[in-house]
């Protein structure tokens, strides 16, 4: 677990979803959009806990760069271990654009269908809004990274 790693002079990064660990390895630089903007983390960063927005998490490891499209979630740096906890994380070329676009559309429809007088309307809408943002983010990143 978290304690097995870190503490040394090398930064590690883990991207974890409810289904599985998506990325687990060394990193020289991790960039993610946290609550107050983009944050880059390098070795020996101060301990930090924040949220991440639906967006992309970029992990640079030597010459390689790993990119993950994520939903919103949480971000923690502690003892040279970066943890990104998100409900969804996929590489941009795994994104099914049509499916993501459908999600956006569905969320928009549901958003407008929430009855005006529903007692927990704000909460329901906030939930739908999250889904829409994740879908939009997937569409955007697919366009950005998928060449064809």
């Amino acid at each position, binding site marked *: 677990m978290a304690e097995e790693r870190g503490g040394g002079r090398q930064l590690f990064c883990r991207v974890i979803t409810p289904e599985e660990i998506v990325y687990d390895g060394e990193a020289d630089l991790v960039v993610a959009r946290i609550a107050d903007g983009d944050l880059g983390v390098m070795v020996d960063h101060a301990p930090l806990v924040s949220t991440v927005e639906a967006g992309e998490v970029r992990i640079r490891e030597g010459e390689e760069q790993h990119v993950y499209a994520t939903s919103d979630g949480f971000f923690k740096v*502690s003892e040279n271990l970066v943890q990104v906890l998100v409900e969804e994380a996929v590489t941009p070329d795994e994104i099914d654009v049509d499916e993501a676009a459908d999600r956006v559309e569905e969320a928009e429809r549901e958003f407008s269908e929430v009855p005006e007088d529903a007692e927990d309307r704000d909460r329901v809408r906030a939930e739908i809004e999250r889904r829409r943002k994740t879908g939009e983010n997937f569409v955007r990143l697919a366009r950005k990274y998928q060449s064809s």
Partner: protein
Amino acid sequence: MATLRDLKRQITSIKNIAKVTEALQTVSAVKFRKAEARVKKARPYAENVEQMMRDVARGASANTPLLAGREVRTVLVASITADRGLAGGFNAQVLRRTMQFRGEQSADLAQVASGRKAVAFFRFRRVGLEEVFTGFSDSPTYEKAREIGGALTRLFDDEEADEVYLIYNRFESALTQKPVVKRLLPVASEEDEGEEDASASYMEYVPDPETVLRRLVPRYVETMVWQALLESAAGEHGARMTAMKNATDNANDLAKNLTLQMNKARQAQITQEILEIVGGAEALAAG
């Protein structure tokens, strides 16, 4: 003593039962392996969300009801069972634990049920159900966990419940599943464990612990429900596999005993016939 024909019929029917239970056992074994792998893969997320919850709870001021709780008027219990039976004591033990837990509470009670077995149980006992979730116990999706978690958080937020507990079968192995009670809300206050990890000393929260807390709590509840659903699913298949193995073994034993009895009966019949023939022949010779 049963006749030869009766015994034959019984043996055939028992062998058929054994075939069915063996098939169920095989199917459960496959599903069990899948479910077990899922639980194991999902654990890191749940553990890390829990750890983060502890970090944030430590950093946030304790005056929010999410952490400190409030006067307990209503206790909400969410029980998770399977949709189907034929799994030994799997469902019964969760429901028994639930009833015991309910009996221990002095506050009012509210109940949420997940799984058809739980729903049927509470309906039969005329226990009112706040929310009902069915149809996914053998292969839950995160979507379902979100639905259940959302409902639990909402009941707490709306002050319809002041404490929320989850009761489910924790998966230990194919042979053992233990019913456990877990308090979800208010978030269990940090018990002073001896091993304080180093990260406790200093932690920066962006933008501040309270904001992170507000975002984290619903996800935390979802995650705990998700974990419980996965554990319960793995436990269900494991329990069914074990139950069906026992059933198959019992059926085979029974078939063996009956076959023995049948052979004895047949032997007796043959002996009887020989005796009759010999008796008849002797009677003729004498005459």
